[in-house]
């Protein structure tokens, strides 16, 4: 079978599964599960076959023209290169094991058909995003993953919180996509193409054509999808969805799409844009790590951890790519950012999916008691989950020789070479990461069960612990190349700047010190000082309140939506109702008058007039927005 046909099947298998489920599977949960998991397995098998057996590591780009309007042409096509191959592997592989886990997790859920239909749509959309060979096509699947994410967050739609979270996720992503779309369109008009391969050639030949505004607008999409500050607010709320969804979409794959996009068009960024990327990523990393201490919901802690790790990825991309920009004569340096970010993306996908599935296993056993302070003593009751979760915690803490150590080390080393400030911030984040993971880990698994739910926990069935085991294996070995198809080695091995010699020792010491100290602090502060509730909340309520407030960013957005957007909308609706409809139209002379006004106004065109009207209107709006009129 030739690779094009194979890619075609990999992309459309899950869509076929989703269609079958939509037509026949609504009332037949187990049937839907079988169809969806089967398609996911086939997808994984074909991907592995392609990557291990068929693909010769040369870039492939089958393409077809899709739509023509005048001189604007839209194409559809696949671009299979190193970055796409990596994500093909990660998405299909992690995707399948999470699908398998979901069979156990959703047993008895009346919405099972809908759940698996959504999962299959997601696998289709995500694959399309990975394989897309141009930015328009990428945007299409970018929106579609957003849609499947919306559907799956709203899975428990009876809960108002789930409905609100789904809306928030989609709308915040649309805000990011607003900029992203402008960026794509501008890019298209500026370069004459959005084809990734053509853009790469163009950008290499004419570096002066790169525009910072376009670069920044293209980053805007990343802010939404990868939940970077200031558009990060949707991801913690998205934990309202079922846990496998959190693992697949909101930890391992979809949220990494932003980072993937960065790597896919790494050549499109100017130095200013790369600096902005570094700042955004670093701020997200440290901010989210701090936020993680303010929540006690096991999934939300993991969500903030995901945010923080995504910040790492984004910062790593920025630093490495900027480094490559400075050191152009160094061979392969242009790909340092892509390599480091994608390497950590891969290992993160394994251990974070493992953490979420572990959490899912716990929640399934503990009747969805999500507060870690109401769990406890689970290691004795769920030994396998405990074992695998331990591996994941050690991996994320960066303890050698687990996967997280290798990839995080590479990022810290990049920071070490590139920027002192970022280096210190990221080291601090590493410490905090181990600390809050230690908090989560010790409080959840050790001590005595603190509620009946935790008391009655039992180990989950094999469909749930087997995926945990596989992901655990990859969390242990993910730093070594033999577990990956040979086609991926170029990106996540040769393109990663690994420390050597004295630097290696330094990074090793820092990593072990931060990881060990963080875990120890987690144990000492949150477990030894009493795990029945948050010790910071007991001893330092003011500081705990600060941690919980998350800098009031959600509140600020809430204020904007309620107090400004809604009031402006109501004010305009009022004007629409009263002025245009009531006075001008209903009055018999109104129509003639308004025609006259419009016709006259358009021909005099006094600029002053417009400005005064604008100012008066803005004044009126702001008065209204602040509640002057009640």
């Amino acid at each position, binding site marked *: 079978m*030739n690779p*094009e*046909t194979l890619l*075609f099947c990999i992309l459309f298998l899950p869509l076929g599964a989703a269609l079958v489920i939509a037509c026949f599977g609504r009332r037949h949960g187990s049937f839907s599960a079988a169809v969806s998991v089967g398609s996911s397995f086939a997808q994984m098998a074909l991907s592995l076959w392609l990557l291990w057996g068929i693909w010769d590591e040369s*870039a*492939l*780009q*089958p393409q*077809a*023209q*899709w*739509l*023509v*309007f*005048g*001189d*604007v042409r839209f194409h*559809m096509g696949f671009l299979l290169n190193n970055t796409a191959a990596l994500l093909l592997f990660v998405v299909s592989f992690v995707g399948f094991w999470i699908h398998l886990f979901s069979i156990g997790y959703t047993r008895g859920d009346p919405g099972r058909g*809908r759940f698996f239909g959504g999962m299959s749509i997601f696998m289709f959309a995500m694959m399309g995003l990975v394989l897309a060979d141009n930015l328009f096509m990428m*945007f*299409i*699947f970018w*929106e579609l993953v957003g*849609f499947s994410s*919306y*559907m799956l967050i709203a899975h428990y*739609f*009876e*809960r*108002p919180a*789930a*409905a609100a979270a*789904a*809306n928030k996720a989609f*709308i915040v992503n*649309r805000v990011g*996509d*607003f900029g992203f*779309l*402008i960026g794509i*369109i501008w890019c*298209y*008009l500026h370069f*004459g*193409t959005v084809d990734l*391969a*053509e853009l790469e*050639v163009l950008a290499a*030949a004419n570096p002066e054509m790169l525009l910072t505004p376009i670069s920044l607008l293209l980053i805007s999409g990343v802010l939404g999808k990868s939940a970077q500050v200031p558009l990060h607010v949707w991801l913690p709320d998205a934990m309202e969805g079922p846990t496998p969804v959190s693992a697949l979409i909101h930890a391992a794959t979809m949220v990494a799409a932003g980072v993937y996009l960065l790597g896919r068009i790494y050549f499109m960024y100017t130095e200013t844009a790369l600096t902005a990327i570094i700042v955004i990523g670093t701020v997200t990393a440290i901010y989210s790590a701090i936020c993680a201490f303010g929540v006690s919901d096991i999934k939300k802690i993991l969500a903030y951890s995901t945010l923080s790790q995504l910040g790492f990825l984004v910062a790593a991309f920025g630093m490495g790519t900027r480094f490559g920009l400075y050191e152009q004569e160094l061979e392969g340096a242009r790909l340092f950012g892509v390599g480091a970010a994608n390497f950590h993306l891969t290992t993160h996908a394994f251990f974070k999916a493992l953490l979420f599935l572990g959490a899912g296993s716990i929640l399934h056993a503990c009747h969805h008691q999500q507060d870690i302070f109401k769990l406890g003593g689970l290691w004795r009751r769920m030994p396998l989950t405990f074992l695998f979760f331990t591996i994941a915690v050690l991996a994320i803490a960066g303890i050698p020789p687990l996967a997280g150590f290798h990839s995080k080390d590479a990022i810290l080393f990049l920071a070490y070479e590139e920027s002192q400030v970022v280096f210190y911030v990221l080291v601090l984040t590493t410490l905090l990461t181990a600390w809050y993971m230690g908090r989560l880990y010790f409080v959840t698994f050790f001590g005595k069960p603190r509620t009946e739910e935790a008391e009655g926990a039992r180990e989950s069935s094999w469909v749930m612990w087997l995926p945990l085991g596989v992901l655990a294996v990859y969390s242990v070995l993910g730093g070594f190349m033999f577990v990956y198809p040979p086609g991926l080695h170029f990106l996540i091995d040769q393109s990663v700047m690994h420390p050597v010699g004295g630097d290696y020792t330094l990074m090793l010491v820092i990593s072990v010190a931060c990881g060990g100290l963080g875990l120890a602090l987690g144990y000492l502060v949150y477990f030894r000082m009493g795990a029945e509730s948050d010790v910071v909340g007991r001893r330092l309520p003011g500081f705990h309140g600060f941690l919980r407030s998350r800098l009031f960013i959600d509140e600020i957005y809430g204020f904007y939506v309620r107090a400004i957007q*809604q009031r402006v*909308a109501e004010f*305009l*609706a009022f004007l*629409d109702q009263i002025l245009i*409809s009531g006075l*001008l*139209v209903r009055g018999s002379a109104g129509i003639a008058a308004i025609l006259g006004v*419009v*016709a006259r106004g*358009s021909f005099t065109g006094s600029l002053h007039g417009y400005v005064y009207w604008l100012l008066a209107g803005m004044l009126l709006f702001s008065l209204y927005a602040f509640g002057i009129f009640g």
Partner: protein
Amino acid sequence: MIAPAVNFAPLTGILQWQQGLHVAVPWLNGALLLASILFPLVAGFALLLAGPKPGRALGVVAGVAFLIPALFAVWLWSTYAGFRGEGEYLFRTDISTGLDAFGISLKLGLNGISAPLFLMAGIVGLAAGLFAIQSGMERMHAYLGLLLIMLSGLLGLFASIDLFFFYFFHEFALIPTFIMIGIWGGRGRKAAAMEMTIYLTLGALLSLTGLIAVYVQSGLNSFDMITLREHLAVIPLATAVQQYAFGLLLFGFGILVSLWPFHTWAPRGYAAAPASAAMLHAGVLKKFGLYGLVQVAVPLLPDGALSWSPVLIYLALGNVLIIGFVTLAQRDLKRMIGYSSVMHMGYIFLGIVSLSTVGIGAAVFLMFAHGLSIALLFLLSASIENRTGTTDLFCMGGLARQTPVLAGFFVAAVFAAIGLPGFANFWGELAVFIAVFEFEKWLGVLVILGIIISAVYGLRAVAQIFYGEASDALAGHVAKAGAPSDLKGAERAPALLLLLALMFSGFLPGTIADSINRSVEATYRPVQVSLSGGSSMPAASQIRRMTATSPGFPWESLEVRDHHTAGLWLPPDQTDGGLFAMNGPDRTNNP
């Protein structure tokens, strides 16, 4: 184009046979076009005259009368799309009406712009008809009869080459709308019908005046669109004449399309209208004005269009932004949908006002897509109202548990309307955004803001109706009227029809866009050439073309691409070969 999707052997066979038939029996398709207009007309009057009949027979007769024009429309559209000509008018007939002295005769035909809209009218007509048949209205025979007459007018207006009949068919469709709102409408129907009548009659009169102005000033003694176009392309009207004639047409058409600030009739009227009338009016009839701009006003009066475009830009921006915000404040489902439809008209206006082949082609595509999606939304909102007894969004909630299929349809319809890829609207909006951004960057940015606004109100409505817990009001209604049932098969069929059409044209937009693009190129390239060469045009440089393919660009195909075109993928030079392939001949690539 991916080969399997197009070269599906049985389909290709049918399409080839269709082309053969078109050549072998030249009169056939013209006759079908005429028949698709006459059939519902005759059936409609027959139903009106027949008086009340027992339900089942009436439904069957009306169903057939709705189905046949739809089938004819599919046939004619696919014949046109498969023909792949230069965007000319096909299926032409000319029937003398005894008004030859005025240059009026019933000239029918379809070009690449009108063929997809004719198809859309047929599909929406069938969906509205099927929905009406199961609605159980009082005096059903009259309701169905009026809908059929309206459908006949809608099909006629897109098929008319003669400007007089173009207008005449519009009135033919408009008058049943007023009657239907007045008789079968909901709360506030009298006032809504009155406001709508005054407004739309005014708009129609203004546009009629404009059309007559063109007729008189051209001095050709002909209402024939093609004659006028050919003549005026060579000898354009004086700029001053063009300006006032275009102004008349713009405001006439603008009122009919609910251009801001002449839009207030629309949400009120649609909120009061019975579902099928709202579907046909918002979906199809409202496109009359836009269609008139694209097919008549701009090609015949390009200078006028140019001098009015600054005004139109600001008004259309009012549609997108001001009405977008007004939509956010609505708490009545039907009014919200009505306002959202007004908002989306802004995109179409802006596509037209960019005066580029991209923008105008995209505007027509969006007309097609919007017609389907707004009809689906009005259909579903009627289904929701039937189950909750209200259209107040605050008096609903949690409906998805009892009516999962209805919820699924509504979610799909909302996402189609807010431009999710996979549905037709996405492509239209995307191409409009490109055209507008190319025209003026700041304008593009403001217009693209619309994707956020529409997501906010669309998703909010979904959540308020279907998610969360049932509100007290809904609980009270359920206690009285019983638990709501899910979407019945008879309601599901028209909804599915519209949804499938939206998804078909969303996945394979080229099937619809190809003919549009050909006709827009044929209609507008000469205009653009004459504008840039004409001396009467001070602002000729304002007409812009997309610069994506300007010479000297490194446009050559890349190495990687040429080696991997085997298998499922046809090489670029073959994509044009297949019948019904998606793309036009490659006009811009280097030879």
